[in-house]
């Protein structure tokens, strides 16, 4: 089936009109009668013990309706079952400047805010840990002690194959250190949540969340209510990028306040508070060693990462694994060892930001390989091409690779950019750099392990022929609404606008685990196709009888249903639905997607497997001024294997947005701290690129038609960020010789590299040592050598 009518066509989004007219209702746009407004009192110290907390003056303030403290919400929670370390309001200790301690609901925001200022708070300050090194080496009361030692949240050590003897077989090895600074999502929409107590003894929460299902679970746990007493509705998310995928304290607090007051309550974070909610990129210190033969073949890699996790667990256990898991999905690494350590620090918690845990190692490896190849006397591109993974193979850490257009991406991006004619040949101060990457199209395991589907879709047709689609998926800007409508419409021969979407409402919609890990297109898309095919088959059966043709000759096209051999005949969609309803009763169907079992035979194998990986290759051309230290990106070329481009307009948009965010990370953005506080919690000082800072981008889409993806599609919303960062760093080296083992590449760092060069030193900027921390025992795993790749396609025709 290649003559698609919707799929593959560039077109606008079904949610476009609502968004361009201002009708899309974001969480802060909700205004309910009698609504109260809430504010949080937050910790002014990075680490401290609560000695006394007196809310009486706040309660006495006229206009204040309720005040909550940690005592009211003692149950701990967290996104991962293994790290339930967050409190909606701190009970004993505060762990970062901004950690919430008390909450007030009042008749208006001003009153609520004034009330928080009337709360008497006495804190005993504890030593603070602001860096990875401090967390591991500084003496004093730790933030938390788990089984890995003081301030260590997670430690993992995995070895696939015999790494030591594989290194022994290498003709050459090289080691490098890298540091990747933290950055934040900075969604334009500040988080907001509204809760209402329903007369029938239920609480409804509207929230700007990427993961209504996980919020649902956390609310049930902390509020002590059964899940069926809670309804979570995700409002359109005004930018997420991973930053709205944890259950948040403010969501729990408004829900509790609604229960306590019996009134609707709204809480909208200020921009400053959004920086405290964070869950962004982990600052990560990395060490990598690779062994290669003379011919360039990699024999072994050893990768170590230290993640600065901030004050709470969040997704950190998973983030830690991600800094090690995907190294093998781009290059053949027959023996691989990974050691990861995540520490607690007194900063807002880190978590998943676009690319979750993988941009850091990708930066390290793509820069490391430049040096390694050159030491070997090989062209760095040829070195990479020699080691690229092959489609339909297994990696040493048991990841199943299926469709893989990496080689084509590399070739196309090199050609489009003229890389080979430019590298090393542009005038001084100008350079090109290259990087490549892979990313997951959804994690194959859910956060809560169970055997149920990850995405479900229901369809229902009414007498107007309108197809109502019910799905738990929430559009965060990535275009999930369009994917659901377009895949369904394609199967049914309708237009996406004919599909009425009801999404992300736990009372009404079947499960979708959430808009994270680039899973929605793949999983909800597959579920939608299945539901649509089943609906189509019901109608086909009824129509076959009416048209007196075999069922498989009934075709659905342009809003009509006909005998495929007599396309000019047939009936309208509405009539066909009437025929089917008369024959079968209610017209409805369901579809579900559950990823195949892909985990390897070892503990920790749950992180990394995905039903399919997207691939990207990127070239950046830069101008770097050795006098001023300023680096400007002149152009970016990026080729991306998206499996099948369901809608080129949207795919281009996702790729461009990813490149944008990557450019911000490599040159400008920093979530940094001073005196124990976030240094710059402001939109002005946290430097997000403006319209004037954006270079042109040439996007090349590569289609490999994945055997398991919906119509062959894979992800495109995260992967294309990854190669941008090393491509720019490598381009800077090409331009002025400065080697960056640390990002962001800021002007003063460029100048200090130039100063080093002038002194005859290596112009390298980056970390020089690793902290002294020894992981426990390594888990040794045999690679799945020779294991045959099995496929589990869902739909006959895709």
């Amino acid at each position, binding site marked *: 089936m290649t003559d698609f009518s919707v799929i593959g066509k560039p077109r606008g989004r079904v949610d476009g009109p609502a968004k361009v007219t201002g009708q899309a209702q974001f969480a802060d746009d909700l205004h309910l009668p009698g609504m109260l407004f809430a504010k949080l009192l*937050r*910790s*002014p*110290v990075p680490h401290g013990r609560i000695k006394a907390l007196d809310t009486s003056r706040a309660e006495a303030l006229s206009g204040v309706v309720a005040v909550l403290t940690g005592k009211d919400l003692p149950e701990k929670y967290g996104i991962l079952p293994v790290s339930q370390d967050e409190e909606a309001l701190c009970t004993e200790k505060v762990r970062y*400047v901004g950690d919430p301690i008390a909450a007030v609901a009042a008749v208006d*925001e*001003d009153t609520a805010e004034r009330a928080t200022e009337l709360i008497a708070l006495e804190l005993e300050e504890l030593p603070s840990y602001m860096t990875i090194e401090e967390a591991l080496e500084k003496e004093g009361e730790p933030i938390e002690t788990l089984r890995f030692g003081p301030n260590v949240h997670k430690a993992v050590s995995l070895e696939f194959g015999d790494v030591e003897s594989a290194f022994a077989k290498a003709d050459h090895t090289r080691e490098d250190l890298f540091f990747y600074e933290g950055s934040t999502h900075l969604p334009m929409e500040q988080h907001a949540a509204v809760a209402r107590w329903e007369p029938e003894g239920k609480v409804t929460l509207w929230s700007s969340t990427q993961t209504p299902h996980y919020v649902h679970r956390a609310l049930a746990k902390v509020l002590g209510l059964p899940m069926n007493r809670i309804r979570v509705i995700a409002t359109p998310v005004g930018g997420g990028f991973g930053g709205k995928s944890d259950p948040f304290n403010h969501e729990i607090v408004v829900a509790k306040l609604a229960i306590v007051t019996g009134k609707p309550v709204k809480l*909208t974070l*200020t*921009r*400053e508070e959004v920086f405290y909610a964070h869950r962004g990129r982990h600052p990560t210190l990395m060490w990598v060693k690779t062994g290669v033969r003379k011919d360039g073949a990699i024999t072994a890699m050893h990768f170590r990462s230290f993640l600065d996790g901030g004050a709470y667990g969040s997704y950190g256990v998973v983030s830690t694994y991600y800094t090690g898991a995907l190294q093998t999905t781009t290059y053949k690494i027959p023996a691989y060892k990974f050691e990861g350590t995540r520490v607690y620090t007194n900063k807002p918690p880190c978590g998943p930001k676009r690319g979750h845990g993988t941009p850091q190692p990708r930066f390290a490896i793509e820069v490391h390989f430049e040096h390694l190849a050159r030491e070997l006397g090989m062209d760095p591109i040829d070195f990479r091409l020699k080691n690229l993974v092959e489609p339909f193979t297994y990696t040493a850490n048991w990841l199943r690779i299926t469709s893989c257009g990496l080689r084509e991406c590399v070739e196309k991006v090199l050609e489009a950019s003229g890389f080979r004619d430019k590298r090393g040949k542009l005038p001084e101060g100008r350079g090109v750099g290259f990087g490549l990457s892979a990313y997951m199209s959804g994690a194959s395991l859910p956060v809560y392990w169970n055997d149920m589907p990850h995405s479900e879709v229901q369809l229902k047709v009414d007498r107007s022929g309108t197809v109502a689609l019910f799905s738990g998926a929430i559009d965060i800007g990535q275009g999930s609404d369009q994917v659901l409508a377009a895949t369904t419409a394609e199967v049914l021969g309708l237009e996406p606008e004919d599909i009425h979407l009801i999404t992300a409402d736990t009372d009404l919609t079947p499960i979708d685990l959430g808009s994270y890990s680039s899973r929605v297109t793949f999983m909800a898309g597959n579920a939608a196709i299945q539901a649509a095919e089943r609906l189509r088959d019901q109608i086909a059966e009824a129509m076959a009888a009416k048209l007196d043709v075999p069922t498989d000759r009934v075709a659905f096209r342009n809003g009509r249903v006909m005998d495929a051999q007599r396309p000019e005949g047939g009936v309208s969609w509405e009539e066909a639905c009437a025929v089917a309803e008369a024959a079968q009763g209610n017209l409805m169907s369901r579809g579900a997607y559950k990823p195949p079992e892909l985990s390897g035979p070892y503990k920790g194998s749950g992180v990394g497997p995905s039903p399919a990986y997207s691939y990207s290759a990127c070239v950046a051309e830069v101008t770097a*001024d050795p*006098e*001023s*230290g*300023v680096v400007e990106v002149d152009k970016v070329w990026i080729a991306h294997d998206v499996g099948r481009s369901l809608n080129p307009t949207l795919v281009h948009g996702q790729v461009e947005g990813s490149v944008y965010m990557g450019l911000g990370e490599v040159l*400008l953005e920093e979530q940094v701290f001073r*005196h124990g*506080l*976030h*240094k*710059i*919690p*402001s939109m*002005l*000082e946290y*430097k997000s*690129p*403006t*319209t*004037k*800072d954006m270079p042109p981008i040439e996007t090349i889409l590569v289609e490999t038609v994945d055997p398991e993806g919906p119509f062959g599609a894979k992800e495109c919303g995260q992967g294309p960020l990854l190669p941008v960062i090393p491509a720019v760093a490598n381009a800077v080296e090409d331009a002025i010789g400065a080697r960056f083992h640390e990002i962001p590449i*800021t*002007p*003063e760092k460029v*100048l200090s590299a130039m100063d080093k060069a002038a002194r005859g030193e290596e112009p390298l900027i980056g970390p020089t040592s690793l902290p002294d921390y020894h992981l426990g025992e390594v888990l040794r795993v045999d690679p799945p050598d020779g294991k045959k790749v099995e496929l589990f396609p869902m739909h006959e025709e895709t």
Partner: protein
Amino acid sequence: MLRLPPFAYVAPSSVEEVVEALHTHGPDAMIVAGGTDLYPNMKRRQFEPKVLVGLANVPELRAIRGTPEAGLTVGAGATLREVSAHPVIQEHYYAVAKAAGLVSTTPLRNMGTIGGNLCVDPRCNYYDMPFPWRKAVGFCMKKDGDICLVAPGSPRCWALSSSDIAPVSLALEAKLRLIGPQGTRALEANDFYRDDGIEYLTKERDEILTEIQLPPAKGLRTTYWKLRRRGSFDFPILGVAAALTMDDGTVTRARLALGAVASRPEEVVEAREFLEGKEPTEADVHAVAEAAFELAKPLDNADGHFYWRKRMVRPYVQGALKELLRMGPPESWPREYN
């Protein structure tokens, strides 16, 4: 949502009424023009005036009058957009047009005035932060506290003069007209500023800045170079304003001023000595750049590493002067990043 604290608002329709209102309400009152500096500051509780005297309804403040021959007078209430788009200013007072056009963003230039720009509150990233943040860091002497967090031993505030037009006004030797209860006075721009992050103006609280008088433009060449990390939004982290009066190839008058290197715009007086009365050479330009470099003492209280901000003084001064002296082809000048 960050909101403004309560205040009473007075909307006079003449300068006279403004002065009267300021006088009546004393130290509780503040002027607001475009509000693009004051309102964010008030939302962060850096200022909590009881009374605001708005200039929006005082049309006389908006006029741009005069001629390049006699000198141009720009009303303090003219918006940055009006100033940057004014054909006479563009042609004869290029630095003013350029600096005004580089302030913040399009909508802020539609709102912000040149008067407000000259009076913009000195900035510091320990200070231009929301109230809860400032409370957590322990406040500083500029508002609510008693020490300086950048230079803890210091008895004074080092907040940074961050106006784009302030250094230009020095370089052009603009005269500023102030009206207060005591009457009218005209100040050299240089005398308008004080080297203090808190009391940064010599203007009395009940005085209003009414106009900026630009000198006759004959032989005048001016420019302004702004350094910032993004192409929009950002305050200058270095501003170099230069004005040369030329007679054939000879410089008869040279003024160079730096912005965003101290609590006030600073004139680099050595420029007079090294450039005036001659056809300056590359070496003269370098000597001025060196003097400017010595003068600049950026601290760690603004965007960009202070080491970098200082380093950029040399190329920026050279660039601005070479541009005015038309020294060599533009490709040979250092680059401007704004």
